[in-house]
């Protein structure tokens, strides 16, 4: 590990009587899943590089309740939401960024009715805004000219109409952005949404992530870019199932940008 990550918490900011520019909502996957932790760190490196004053909730963060709500457990969802909103409101949080489209969707769309009103951004939107403001520069580096395809996460794309921010970032890497047969509003699910991540799939001919990976492999990318930790896991598994892991890498957009700058 290169230099140590600077990851201040909201509690630390509060102790100094300061407010960070933005709260980084890490999410359960980003906090605990080994693969997703790499995405979290890559994003933090970019925040550090762009000198963004951010903070995390750390141990005060809890599941947003997304999988509970999608599974039909409105009680558990609302218990989680109300608890989280109490914490967020106590810290007077205004702006939230997250690398998980599920957290993004839930906090942005479903928390307001329960008293949680924040400006919520997906990390690709936030990185794009840093770029537009000249606070971050993106170079192609090792990805220059590489064939990259972007897998739209349902909860970012169709659910919230965010299609361009991640693509803009990939273009900035001077990479060749190629689109799958199903993309943007017709993007095919990775198979993990709606709490499917946490259970076995119903009986069928095929797993959804395999179908999606086949679509990706059809256009022969060198990298499948993801913008969601769950999609990342599903696509990585799909690539392994197809025994293509030596040819195709699955990477989050934050990782692509951080790696391009050798962070």
């Amino acid at each position, binding site marked *: 590990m290169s230099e140590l990550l600077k990851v201040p918490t909201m509690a630390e900011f509060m102790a100094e009587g300061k407010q960070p520019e933005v709260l980084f909502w890490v999410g359960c996957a980003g906090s605990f899943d080994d693969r997703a932790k790499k995405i*979290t760190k890559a994003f933090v490196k970019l925040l550090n590089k762009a000198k963004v004053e951010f903070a*995390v909730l750390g*141990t005060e963060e809890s*599941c947003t309740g997304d999988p509970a709500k*999608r599974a*039909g457990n409105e009680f*558990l969802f609302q*218990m989680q939401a109300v608890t989280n909103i109490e914490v967020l409101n106590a810290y007077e949080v205004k702006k939230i960024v997250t690398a998980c489209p599920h957290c993004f969707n839930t906090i942005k769309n479903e928390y307001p009715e329960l008293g949680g009103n924040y400006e919520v951004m997906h990390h690709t939107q936030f990185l794009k805004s840093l770029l537009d403001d000249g606070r971050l520069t993106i170079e192609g580096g090792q990805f220059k000219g590489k064939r990259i395809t972007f897998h739209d996460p349902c909860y970012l794309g169709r659910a919230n109409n965010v299609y361009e921010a991640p693509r803009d970032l990939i273009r900035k890497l001077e990479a060749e952005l190629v689109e799958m047969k199903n993309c943007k509003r017709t993007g095919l699910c990775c198979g993990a949404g709606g709490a499917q991540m946490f259970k076995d*799939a119903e009986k069928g001919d095929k797993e959804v992530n395999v179908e999606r990976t086949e679509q990706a492999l059809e256009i022969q990318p060198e990298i499948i870019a993801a913008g969601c930790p769950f999609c990342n896991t599903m696509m990585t598994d799909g690539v392994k199932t197809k025994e293509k892991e030596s040819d195709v890498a699955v990477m989050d957009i934050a990782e692509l940008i951080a790696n391009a700058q050798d962070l």
Partner: protein
Amino acid sequence: MEYLPNILFIILLGIGIGFFAKNVKKLIRNIKLGHDVDVSDNKSQRWKNMAMIALGQSKMVRRPIAGFLHIIVYLGFIIINIEVLEIIIDGIFGTHRIALSILPEAVYGFIISTFEVLAILVFVAVTIFWMRRNIIKLARFWKSEMTGWPKNDGNFILYFEMVLMMLFLVMNATDVHFQTLNTGNVISQYIAPWFGNLPEGTVHIIERTAWWLHITGIFIFLNYLYFSKHLHILLAFPNTFYGKLTPKGQFNNLEAVTKEVKMMMDPNIDPFAAPAEGTENAIPAKFGASDVQDLNWVQLLNAYTCTECGRCTSECPANQTGKKLSPRKIMMDTRDRLEEVGKNMDANKGVFKEDGKQLLDNYITREELWACTSCNACVEACPVSIDPLSIIMDMRRYLVMEQSAAPVELNNMMTNIENNGAPWPYNQMDRLNWKNE
């Protein structure tokens, strides 16, 4: 005797419209069996959606071939039906081509020629639609839910339209008076020679027969709507108007649950206190939906609007990978069950008599419900703003909150969230460990 046709026509008109009105009343009653839901917001956006999606067919053309053909049939239907106005006036008053005595010949000719061109275009489009269903056998028209009535219904509509268009052209072609005017008969002039050798009396009888069959056919078609997927030609308009405006990922908030959660979390509230005046109904008898009456009326309107085109199902990732879920079937099941409930009420003086059946299990299986990834592909694909996902979610809510019948792994996930604040069994105190790893 000379008024006999007029009287017959007025009786036909009365029966045609009367039956239709009766069925519309039943339709409205059935839709109102659903919970009330406030959709009075954002009027301007709603009008815009209706104009773009229903009137402007903006989502139909996302599949260009079907979209283009559909626009022909749709425009043809609306424009040619202007002719019905003349037919009705003629029928009531015993006149013949009344508009011709009002409008200049050239204008009348222009209007009728437009109708004739559209009629032939509609005929061609409908024939292609028929071939897509029956010869090319597009996969989405041959799914398991598309057998029996749904399959026949689709074809009946196409036959109906073919016959109606032909009758309209034959009517014009055999109208000797109209043919000799030599204006507007752009298509029918080529059909006219088929009847050239027949005696004039016979030609006249054919003209009258075509006229009567055409208008009778239209009345039959009007009344067929209620029993058919073709109801979408009417309901697409209110359905797109009342369609969801919030982001697709935003699932509705259950107010009743919010009240309970607030109560649980507020130490100052006495949980055993009697509910305040007027709040008795605040807590519903049931969380989620197990039958059609538990859904809201927009969801029921959705079910009646569905035209079974299957665009939702063909985009559904679960369906594409061979799972049982088909969003179209969810909508068809909801309508079928609602119809069953409606018939039950008709047979029992307007009151629903328990029939031991419900939407859940008797129509929609749990396997279907649990196969959904909530990806919104079906919602995005629907050309008339139907939201099958909302029904799936309401039924999952019933399974989880009323029956505790979630799959075991999901119960584990939920226990983890409850205990550790994460869907996995990790300690919340370890949430920031990644920082130093």
